[in-house]
């Protein structure tokens, strides 16, 4: 079951995503003010939600890891952090494309943009510490993830007062139900893909931890003559 689950999720994603592309481009009306370019919304927004969800998952898992030393929580934190980087890359690539077409400027130092960018940097540093940190740095990385998750609302607020002239993009809130209806398949497909990858990565990481411990066990065992 543990091995089958990610395959099922990835399969669901592989079926849902083409359907959502078809739906977004052929069955959803074109937005009046922004035109065709608004279609990127159906992928940009779900990716941003998924990235935030994964950041919270990573922060919570790191909190559990630091308190209980759960190996499962540790593997979850690593997997979630790596996927934050992937989803974040998607957000940071689609966002400026959309911004360039609608605001006329790819990067406006809007509070959301800066927050997303900094969140991405924090998780990049988490992954760097995990990969290049010496033995024992997993606790440090966990603290980093907790701080990263706590920082997000603070950064958002900080940038808002730093840059008071951020563009007012309340377009998203006032979408007609037809467009919302097209958002769900895209969100579902991307979420299924993400969870599938997350699950597979957690399994991989746990196998790696088990292998490490087996190595240590063999080295520590008394040598037979």
């Amino acid at each position: 079951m543990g091995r089958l689950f990610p395959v099922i999720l990835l399969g669901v994603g592989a079926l849902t995503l083409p359907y959502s592309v078809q739906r977004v481009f052929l069955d959803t009306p074109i937005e009046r003010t922004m035109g065709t370019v608004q279609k990127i919304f159906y992928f940009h927004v779900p990716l941003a939600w998924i990235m935030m969800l994964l950041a919270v998952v990573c922060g919570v898992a790191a909190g559990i890891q630091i308190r209980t030393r759960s190996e499962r929580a540790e593997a979850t934190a690593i997997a979630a952090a790596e996927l934050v980087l992937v989803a974040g890359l998607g957000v940071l690539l689609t966002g400026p494309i959309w911004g360039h077409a609608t605001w006329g400027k790819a990067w406006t130092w809007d509070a959301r943009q800066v927050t997303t960018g900094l969140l991405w940097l924090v998780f990049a540093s988490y992954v760097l510490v995990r990969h290049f940190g010496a033995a024992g740095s997993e606790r440090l990385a966990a603290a980093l993830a907790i701080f990263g998750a706590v920082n997000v609302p603070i950064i958002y607020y900080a940038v808002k007062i730093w840059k008071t002239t951020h563009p007012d993009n309340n377009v998203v809130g006032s979408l007609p139900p037809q467009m919302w209806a097209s958002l769900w398949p895209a969100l579902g497909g991307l979420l299924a893909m993400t969870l599938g990858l997350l699950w597979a990565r957690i399994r991989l990481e746990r196998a790696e931890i088990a292998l490490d411990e087996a190595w240590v066990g063999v080295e520590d065992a008394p040598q037979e003559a």
Partner: protein
Amino acid sequence: MREAALSTLPRAKNAPMRLPRQAWLLARNDLRQEMREWELVATAGFFTLVVLVMFALAFATLSRDAQVLAVPGMLWLTVAFVGALTLTRIFDRERESDTLRALLAAPVERLAIYLGKALVTLLVLLGCCAILVPGVVLLFPAAAPLAEHPIQTVTLVVLGCLAYTSVGTLFAAGLATSGGKNVLLSVILYPLTTPALIFALVATRALIENHPDFSKYLSQLAALDIVLVGLSGWLFESVLVGTGARRAPTTRRRRG
């Protein structure tokens, strides 16, 4: 000497007073060592001067309007640079003479170790700001309001440095116990201290522009300080020694 300082620590008695006293004893010990060698203060102070000269060379020709925008950035970037330099050194002494283990085994609160180290770092940073702020005021005419409101400036600098120090000390301690690789400190520090630096930046700009919202920004910075110190203090013990006992923390073998 450190042993002497530790032996004077009160044991179980006076529990509420124990923490500040222990923190102060540990900090005093570091400060005394610093007074003998002047290593941290001399290097950090000189580095501040160098960065200041660099900024002056790069931005001396800015117009007054541009200076208003640039001065807060220069101020807090320098604090970030000097802070990173100080934090890489603050636990090195313990590591070089392998006293961190002794410190951890000593009958002191772990939080006191954090508070003591944070206090020393904060004092070094404030010492550097004593060069930095007058230097900026001298070099850039737009920064004159910093000298005109000395109390506000000092409060702002203390609160900003405190926010930076509270996060930095936690991660410097974590790297010191996880066996080297201080390179990672910069990788961690800059993204994590950004909110503190943005708040300090906003408040500095408000002070320079005589903005009425300055006191609001200052109190927000103070609130952020409380959050950061609280979170760091809460996490410090877990980062330093770990809790629970799934496995010995350093036995993990690294492959590849």
